[in-house]
């Protein structure tokens, strides 16, 4: 197993290097530069050149890439010009906020999705199945940002149960209950689509397993239905549900960008959008590489867990 994990980690290196090249080139090629973004109306060629020089952007492209890569390998992601603080500090701050949001959402969609799928499959064509299938269809069809705005209108503006936006109350907040109040709407809105997808996949995976001979055998031996479903069927179905969970984790993370904008969650998605609009090159590059690295590690983790569940997969 250790050998497998090591091999996977080594094979991730070229992927990450490729990502550094791509994000670097994209930022170099898109029109507009930080100096123009800083100066706006006052971006005379002279002022632009002065600012670009002070940001080190007057050096040749290849040289800039290797300077950036070299610094990054030593843990120095540079300084964000738009926020005037070290890129890594900002990313870590923001990433922890995103993890709280995406993590909660992921746990929500995994539990709700699998549960819905299992119930649906166990009661195929029953009223519970129909109801769940209907709700799942809505969950998948409504864009998360729209759902988010509707939730704000209903629960924050009309009913005033929940705060509109942010992560903590400005005054007198900061505890877990405060966080939960701020987290409820964005986490649910973010989880909606993934819950639907997971529920569908879980349902079909469960249905397939429930038709297997060994399930019939288990039932014939008089094992209780609950035990058949949860113990015998779900464990086997998890092998095909797990990769879906892994994929959905990725979707939740990328969907967080919209939700963070709508709910002004101080996470990495909103950070990247702001940074791109301001042409905050180092923050965009650092942020993308960081998020990509997380994806890679997460995918490896999913594969490893899958290998543990199903010894046939380890190759």
């Amino acid at each position, binding site marked *: 197993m250790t050998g497998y994990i090591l091999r996977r980690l080594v094979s991730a290196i070229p992927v990450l290097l490729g990502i550094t090249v791509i994000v670097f080139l994209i930022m170099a090629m898109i029109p507009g530069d930080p100096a123009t973004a800083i100066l706006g109306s006052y971006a005379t060629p002279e002022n632009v050149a002065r600012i670009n020089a002070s940001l080190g952007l007057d050096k040749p492209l290849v040289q800039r890439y290797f300077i950036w890569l070299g610094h990054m390998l030593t843990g120095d992601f540079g300084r964000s010009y738009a926020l005037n*603080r070290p890129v890594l500090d900002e990313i870590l701050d923001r990433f922890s906020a995103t993890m709280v949001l995406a993590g909660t959402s992921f746990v929500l969609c995994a539990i709700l999705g699998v549960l819905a799928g299992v119930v649906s499959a166990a009661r195929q064509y029953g009223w519970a199945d129909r109801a769940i299938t209907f709700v799942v269809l809505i969950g998948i069809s409504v864009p998360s940002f729209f759902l988010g705005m509707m939730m704000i209108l209903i*629960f924050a*503006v009309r009913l005033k149960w929940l705060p*509109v*936006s942010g992560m903590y109350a400005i005054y007198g907040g900061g505890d877990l209950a405060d966080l939960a*109040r701020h987290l409820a709407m964005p986490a649910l809105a973010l989880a909606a689509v993934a819950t639907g997808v997971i529920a569908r996949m879980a349902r079909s995976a469960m249905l397939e397993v429930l038709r297997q001979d060994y399930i019939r055998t288990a039932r014939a031996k008089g094992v209780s239905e609950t035990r058949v479903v949860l113990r015998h069927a779900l464990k086997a179905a998890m092998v095909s549900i797990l990769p879906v969970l892994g994929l959905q984790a990725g979707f939740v993370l990328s969907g967080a960008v919209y939700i963070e904008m709508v709910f002004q969650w101080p996470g990495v998605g909103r950070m990247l959008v702001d940074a791109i609009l301001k042409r905050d090159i180092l923050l965009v590059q650092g942020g993308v590489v960081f998020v990509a690295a997380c994806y890679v590690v997460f995918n490896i983790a999913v594969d490893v867990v899958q290998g543990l569940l199903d010894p046939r997969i380890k190759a």
Partner: protein
Amino acid sequence: MAVSALALCAASPALAQTPAGVLIVGQIAEPKSLDPAADTAVNDFRILVNLYDGLVRYKSGTLEVEPALAEGWEISEGGTVYTFTLKEGVQFHDGTPVDAEAVKFNFDRMLVEDHPYHDTGPFPLAFFFSAITQTEAVDARTVKFTLNEPYAPFLSNLAYPTGLIVSPAGVKAGGKDFGRSPVGTGPFKFKEWRSNEAVVLEKNPDYWDGAPELEALVFRPITDANTRVAEMLSGGIDMMVEVPPTALAQFRTQDFKLAEQAGPHVWFLILNMKDGPFADKLLRQAANYAINKKALCGDVLEGTAAVSNGPVAPAFSWAYDDSLEPYPYDPEKAKALIAQSGATDLSVTFYVTEGGSGMLDPIPMGTAIQADLKAVGFDVKIETFEWNTFLGKVNPGLEGQADMAEMAWMTNDPDTLPFLTLRTAAFPDQGGFNSGYYSNPEVDSLLEEARKETDQDKRGALYRKMAGIVHDDAPWVFVANWKQNAVTSAAVSHFTLQPSFLLELGKVTKA
């Protein structure tokens, strides 16, 4: 889990409103820095003016300069030496005195490259003061600026946030991070900056111009306009700026107060005078007649802007010519001018941006303009770009690429916009923003003269004359002057929006 979270919230019925004595302001973005020398965005300026004072400031409700940290000043014959006398006994929030040495430190830090604290920059707007050749501390209360040539906008540049005075001791202690631990003289002192959540200022009880009644000010960055509106409606913030026009109706109730103020803003279309149809003056005037500016301001912008008559914004009341009538909406006249010109190729490439500083609602405005021009015979093709890309396309000049481009400027002096965009010496290849290549020697000399004239009345007359000529030459389609707006809850009083677009909150109260 979700259910328990909801239950938890339902248990504490309505959320607590904002605390008494604390004003929470919904801002449009996270500030970059709270160092006035480093900032360029109005978003940051709105915080700065509550933390700092300049030598001078804009008189409330106007764009005229009045004393602040300086109690008075003298301008030498010839207009190259400005001598300021500082108020006595004013201190920075850290207890150090505001003396001539401190003022000198501020300007030397920005302008003198071997100053020991020049490396706490960069200072992108330092060129506002590039006319200064020397700053001298004559005695503790007298500071003298020597300029390389007469430069009339100098005083209003001092009143602009780039001229706000910071504490030298604060800069020495904070170094490059001074912008995150700012020390000034203003009605509020810096308390904390929680990244992406809030900047908190607390009252300065010793403020020289009268301590504020508010205990604290909180600036929250809420980048999404819909979310900002929802926060205001739900009572999560006490004040919001830049209300989207479409949301205004929701605030016309007794729970809210709506403030509006015309500012030093001009929204216009740059016309390419080098090639294409708009090289012909008749066709430029035709475009001015063809576009229904009243409908743009009233319908597209929901009354948040007024029709513009030329390159000087009405907020500069001393330089604005209110007798100059905007081009009326007259499609028949436009058609007649087109016929008179004899032009046959009326195809126009029109650069539109998705949004940007001061651009209001550029896509719907661009589409409406396209339709108006089409109605009189122009064949307009729109090309849309994201803001920074757009600037990268427009600033180098429109020649060979486009015939028309949207643009908007907000400035602090009537000199800035025409000087940088309408002079022959401001063609893009000479480092200016004259992207449509307007050139009129008379306008050039009027602008040069106005910038050297230190008598405000005489200066104003020069700008009025310039505006009349430009109006007739029609290098632009003059479209709109934006009225900035803000909403406060009904509990907030004594709040005035300033024409400078700055957000002075020292006198505001909250019940």
